[in-house]
């Protein structure tokens, strides 16, 4: 019995990369358990020549130098192979029918519970895998046979006990799944199956040690599952050097499986066999070359999917499992790994941002992978990893200490979109019973550990042992046993609990919409009442009205308030005018807020007349304050949403504002003060509203000064949204359409009502500051009268005390009333590994999340302090991060350098910083009105990072040409004037607008195909609605094929932004209107601006500052 701990393998950083990125390491964990010689024999084709020749440790990074130490072949202690373990033979699994049930006694189902941990006479144990199999029948092949394996290969017990951080155990590579996963079939690896399974069976010699650690039994046991189960979702992160580390990308979009071993990218090597990128050549560094295509000379950057195939970021750094409490020999090894110069010296993992164009397509790449150590979660399921859309962290490897975080200079925070819902994505599963930790009140989730034979569960946030409730295993109504591993809350990271009456302070409120419509003279001039009337008329049927409880009400405001009394009998609505504002009173107690279903006729007749009623009105003055107070009084019993449609300054009553001079102070330091609210009435009113569960949406029209910066506080502190239509006129069809579509989308969304959000984090982490539209009711409780699905919130996280666990958790609980009147709690849990290695932190930083967090913080700072402070802070942070990386992680830690090296996953940070500075919210200069700036700030504050980054911060630019298909007709190019050519036609999309840029010699054929117009000159500059041209001849030869493609593109872009905006299309001709041209060119973030440098200049400046060390 040679349970010897093998000697530390000696290899350098270079080897680590080789190992991690090697093709067969990536796909075939089996290779890991073969010895050097076996590996070579087994995978002759997939081995890179230099790998085998120059790197003796290749593929066996954690294997001792002498393989004999690992697997002493001693037939006596080799367990008998059961047929279940034979590769290729599907294992027998006990189905439900095979389960013996002892009447009257609950049966606890634990996955592969180790025999030693099962107390005498304890209930029978069944594997969860059989259940998983039923749940995911099409993927069952990916699950190796756990049943029986545990008894025969108890080595996992050993590993987890000797090493609580099993990623470093040198022998752990020795086990893998004995069953060949299907994606290896056909690859040379398949031939090694027999060898491997034999190897696998050779390792039971450490099993005797297990009894020392009975308490860990359950976790140990689940590690076993993980160790042998590659997840189908792991396209790029199949278990590698160690069988136990489970690597799963959050890659939501990528195809889940089917990547053959040879397709994977080998960092540092040119792999000619990559089939996924036929168009783009890959350079020796793994970068796709920019090629010039077509006669128009469009510079196209490679498409995202293709690039992702070659992107190694998801493949390296994965052995950086946390290093804590490891026992002596393993610890020394772990230390070695920890101190290993990760990334340093290897150019493939760092990018010189000075060289060439930024890789913009990286913006759409998934965040760096979250690599959880083995044993987490407790039950293997594909859905346990939180999709980044729900919650993403700026760091996907969290430093254990605050000191380390400070050293890396990276901002640490999480961004959540707690109520994310989208068509096509199924809502989270519903659970009826709530199980929570007694101490920290967190909800049970996939990351808890079952201990004491499954009778108790250990909370993953506070580590308190809680009792497992009876109903987990026993159905008292049907008097049958249940399998707890079927429970949705143990399989999914996002679930919705149905809240019982304890979670209600009153009966669930109905959806209530109360419109306050400005009908003063400026509004009449814009033709607003009619458009609003028509729009609401159309929305009425789309408002969430599941149970017929939805209520609506209206007030129109000029210098007096007009209430509308609507009765169910269908009689004409009555208008009640109140002009006395000393004490706002409600003229009629019941029929101002009416049930939508009952009074639809009356409401419709009111809305239809709205335009007519006020068409002759010349009343100047607006009494929004009293209207808001009246609305609040009406809504106090129910709560609800006030939709304020405003187009003039409030001048009458309590909340009157004096218009502030705008033009003189734009661009001056006083601008920052003018962005602050004029007085606190609106703020306090908003706080009051939040108490009565009232949200306020503010919608502004027209460009005359309204002191938006003060009124918008209503939305900011009640969880409402803000819309701004500065160029609105009822005669401009595209503007009207934009307003209609956006408002319809917004109001018809299925919202959550009377909600609160609480985020809990592992011990040692403190949630320091919150950003978004909400009211902070207590230190960590966000109150949201209405939760809008698209709203996102950012949280600054601080490390208060050193983290002890291998994984840190963030759990968001959103208690809300769904539109159907059910009280629900949506719980999402994010698990992120912790680390002590600064390289790992850098290489797992998520640039999109970082930029989004920085932008949100910058906006907050601009509103509290000064615009210039916010700009400086964000610039400083970017430099600080790059400088910290240079000092900590590159060889040129001091002294001047000619290049700026950043980790590959942070390479766009300078670009994103620059685009935040160039965004309307922070851009310096005197051209941005307060309204536009405030609206841009509001959108940064609420948008989720995915949409915020692109198209909001970095717009998309496409070159259009006549190609054979969609792909070749619409080429994504860099958002720079360099890309624009005078012969071409380009499309720029920034969310709110689409610019069609026509070069002065634009190909007439192209223009005809796009717009159906023959001569360039006949195309007017300015707003158009993009025509949908049809022709008799359909297909690629259609004369208007480009028009079809562009319409397809616009639709696709709309889906990508979740239909938040309905863009206005502008024709911008190269020799056309200069104002429009300037406006468009402002969006080309790579270019120089009057007050801001171009990307290249910015990088150059950054380099100089970093070299000087002072910034």
């Amino acid at each position, binding site marked *: 019995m040679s349970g010897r701990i093998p000697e530390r393998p000696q290899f350098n950083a270079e080897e680590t990369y080789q190992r991690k990125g090697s093709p067969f390491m990536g796909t075939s964990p089996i290779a890991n358990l073969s010895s050097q010689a076996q590996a070579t024999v087994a995978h002759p084709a997939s081995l890179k020549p230099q790998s085998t020749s120059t790197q003796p440790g290749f593929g066996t990074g954690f294997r001792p130098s002498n393989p004999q130490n690992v697997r002493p072949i001693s037939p006596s202690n080799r367990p008998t192979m059961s047929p279940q373990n034979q590769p290729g033979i599907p294992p027998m699994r006990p189905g439900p029918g095979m389960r013996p049930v002892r009447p009257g006694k609950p049966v606890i189902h634990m996955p592969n519970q180790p025999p030693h941990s099962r107390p005498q006479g304890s209930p029978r144990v069944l594997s969860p895998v059989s259940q998983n199999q039923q749940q995911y029948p099409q993927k069952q092949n990916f699950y190796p046979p756990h049943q029986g394996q545990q008894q025969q290969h108890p080595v996992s017990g050993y590993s987890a006990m000797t090493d609580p951080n099993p990623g470093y155990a040198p022998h752990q590579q020795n086990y893998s799944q004995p069953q060949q996963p299907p994606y290896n079939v056909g690859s040379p690896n398949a031939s090694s199956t027999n060898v491997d399974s034999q190897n696998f069976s050779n390792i039971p010699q450490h099993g005797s040690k297990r009894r020392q650690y009975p308490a860990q039994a359950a976790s140990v046991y689940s590690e076993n599952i993980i160790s042998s189960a590659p997840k189908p979702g792991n396209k790029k992160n199949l278990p590698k050097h160690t069988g136990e580390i489970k690597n799963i990308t959050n890659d939501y979009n990528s195809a889940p499986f089917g990547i053959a071993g040879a397709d994977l990218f080998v960092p540092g090597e040119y792999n000619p066999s990559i089939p996924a990128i036929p168009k783009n050549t890959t350079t020796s560094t793994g970068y796709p070359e920019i090629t010039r295509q077509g006669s128009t000379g469009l510079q196209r950057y490679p498409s995202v999917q293709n690039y992702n195939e070659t992107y190694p970021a998801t493949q390296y750094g994965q052995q950086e499992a946390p290093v804590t409490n490891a026992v002596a020999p393993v610890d020394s090894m772990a230390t070695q790994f920890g101190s290993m110069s990760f990334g340093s010296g290897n150019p493939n993992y760092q990018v010189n941002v000075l060289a060439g164009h930024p890789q913009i397509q990286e913006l759409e790449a998934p965040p760096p992978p979250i690599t959880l150590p083995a044993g987490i979660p407790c039950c293997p399921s594909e859905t346990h990893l939180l999709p980044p859309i729900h919650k993403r962290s700026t760091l996907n490897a969290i430093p254990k200490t605050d000191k380390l975080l400070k050293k890396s200079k990276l901002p640490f925070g999480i961004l959540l979109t707690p109520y994310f819902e989208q068509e096509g994505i199924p809502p989270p599963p519903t659970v009826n019973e709530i199980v929570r930790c007694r101490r920290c009140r967190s909800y049970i989730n996939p990351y808890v550990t079952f201990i004491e034979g499954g009778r108790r569960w250990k909370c993953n946030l506070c580590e308190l042992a809680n009792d497992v409730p009876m109903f987990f295993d026993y159905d008292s109504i049907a008097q049958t046993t249940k399998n707890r591993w079927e429970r949705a809350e143990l399989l999914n990271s996002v679930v919705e609990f149905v809240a019982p009456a304890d979670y209600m302070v009153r009966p669930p409120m109905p959806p209530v919409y109360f419109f306050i419509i400005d009908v003063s003279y400026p509004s009449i001039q814009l033709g607003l009442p009619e458009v609003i009337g028509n729009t609401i008329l159309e929305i009425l049927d789309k408002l969430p009205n599941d149970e017929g409880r939805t209520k609506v009400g209206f007030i129109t405001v000029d210098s007096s308030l007009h209430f509308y009394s609507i009765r169910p009998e269908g009689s004409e609505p009555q208008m009640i005018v109140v002009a006395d504002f000393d004490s706002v009173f409600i003229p009629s107690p019941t029929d101002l807020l009416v049930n939508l279903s009952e009074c639809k006729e009356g409401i419709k007749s009111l809305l239809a007349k709205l335009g007519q009623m006020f068409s002759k009105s010349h009343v100047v003055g607006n009494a929004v304050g009293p209207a808001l107070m009246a609305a609040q009084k009406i809504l106090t019993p129910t709560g609800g949403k006030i939709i304020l449609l405003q187009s003039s300054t409030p001048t009458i009553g309590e909340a009157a504002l004096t218009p502030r001079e705008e033009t003189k102070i734009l661009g001056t330091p006083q601008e920052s003060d003018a962005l602050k609210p004029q007085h*606190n009435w609106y*703020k*306090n009113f*908003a*706080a*009051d509203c*939040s*108490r009565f569960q009232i949200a306020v949406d503010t919608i502004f029209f027209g460009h005359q000064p309204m002191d938006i910066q003060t009124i918008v*506080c209503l939305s900011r*502190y009640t969880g409402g949204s803000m819309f701004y239509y500065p160029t609105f006129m009822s005669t401009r069809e595209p503007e009207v359409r934009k307003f209609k579509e956006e408002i319809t989308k917004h109001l018809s969304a299925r919202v959550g009502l009377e909600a609160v959000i609480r985020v809990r984090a592992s011990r040692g982490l403190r949630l320091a*500051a919150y950003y978004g539209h909400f*009211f*902070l*009711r*207590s*230190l960590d*409780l966000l109150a949201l009268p209405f939760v809008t699905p698209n709203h996102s919130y950012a949280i600054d996280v601080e490390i208060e005390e050193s983290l002890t666990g291998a994984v840190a958790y963030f759990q968001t609980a959103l208690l809300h009333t769904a539109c159907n009147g059910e009280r629900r709690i949506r719980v999402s849990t994010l698990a992120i590994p912790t680390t002590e290695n600064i390289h790992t932190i850098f290489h797992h930083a998520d640039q999109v999340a970082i930029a989004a967090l920085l932008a949100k913080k910058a906006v907050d700072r601009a509103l509290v302090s000064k615009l210039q402070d916010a700009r400086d802070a964000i610039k400083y942070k970017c430099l600080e991060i790059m400088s910290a990386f240079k000092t900590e992680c590159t060889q040129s830690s001091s002294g001047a350098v000619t290049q700026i090296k950043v980790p590959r996953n942070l390479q766009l940070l300078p670009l994103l910083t620059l685009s935040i500075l160039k965004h309307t919210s922070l851009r310096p200069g005197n051209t941005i009105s307060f309204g536009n700036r405030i609206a841009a700030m509001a959108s940064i504050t609420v948008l989720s990072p995915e949409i915020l980054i692109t198209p909001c911060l970095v717009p998309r630019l496409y070159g259009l040409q006549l190609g054979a298909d969609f792909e070749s007709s619409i080429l994504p190019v860099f958002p720079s004037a360099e890309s624009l050519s005078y012969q071409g036609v380009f499309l720029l999309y920034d969310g709110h607008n689409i610019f069609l840029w026509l070069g002065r010699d634009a190909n007439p054929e192209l223009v005809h195909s796009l717009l159906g117009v023959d001569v360039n000159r006949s195309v007017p500059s300015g707003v158009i609605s993009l025509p949908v041209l049809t022709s008799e001849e359909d297909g690629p030869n259609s004369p208007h094929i480009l028009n079809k493609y562009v319409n397809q593109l616009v639709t696709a872009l709309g889906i990508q932004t979740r239909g938040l905006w309905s863009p206005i299309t502008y024709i911008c001709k190269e020799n056309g209107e200069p104002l429009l041209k300037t406006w468009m060119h402002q969006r080309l973030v790579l270019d120089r601006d009057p007050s801001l440098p171009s990307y290249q200049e910015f990088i150059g400046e950054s380099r100089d500052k970093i070299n000087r060390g002072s910034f």
Partner: protein
Amino acid sequence: MSYTSLVYILALIISAVLLFGAVYFVIMLTDLECDYINPIDLANSLNTYVMPEFILFSVMLLMFLFVGQWFTFVLNLPLFLWNVSKISSNRQFYDATEVFRTLPRHKRENFTKVGFFLLSFFYYLYCMIVTLINEPADTLISS
């Protein structure tokens, strides 16, 4: 009894009131931190006392000025100026929407005030005794 001693007796009472006020503020802010009250209630209840507190303190300062207690006056001057600067920039009130962001600062302010009023309470007590002892016998008799 001279005016000076009378002023010190009044100052003693006022500083005791201010001391209790500051303690009340600290208790409320701690309650907020522990989630016993919500920020709106806190802002409503505290904001009612902000201006009376300031007025009371200013009255005390004026009294010292009238009786020519320069040293005591100068001792109180920093707090007075700080209060004035807060009011002139309209920051004196508690803002329910921002209170969590500024909570540590508010707490620090109020702890400082508690300390200051406590010390000044004993100082006024001492001054009162000293002035009473040093007063000529005839004034004592006449009072």
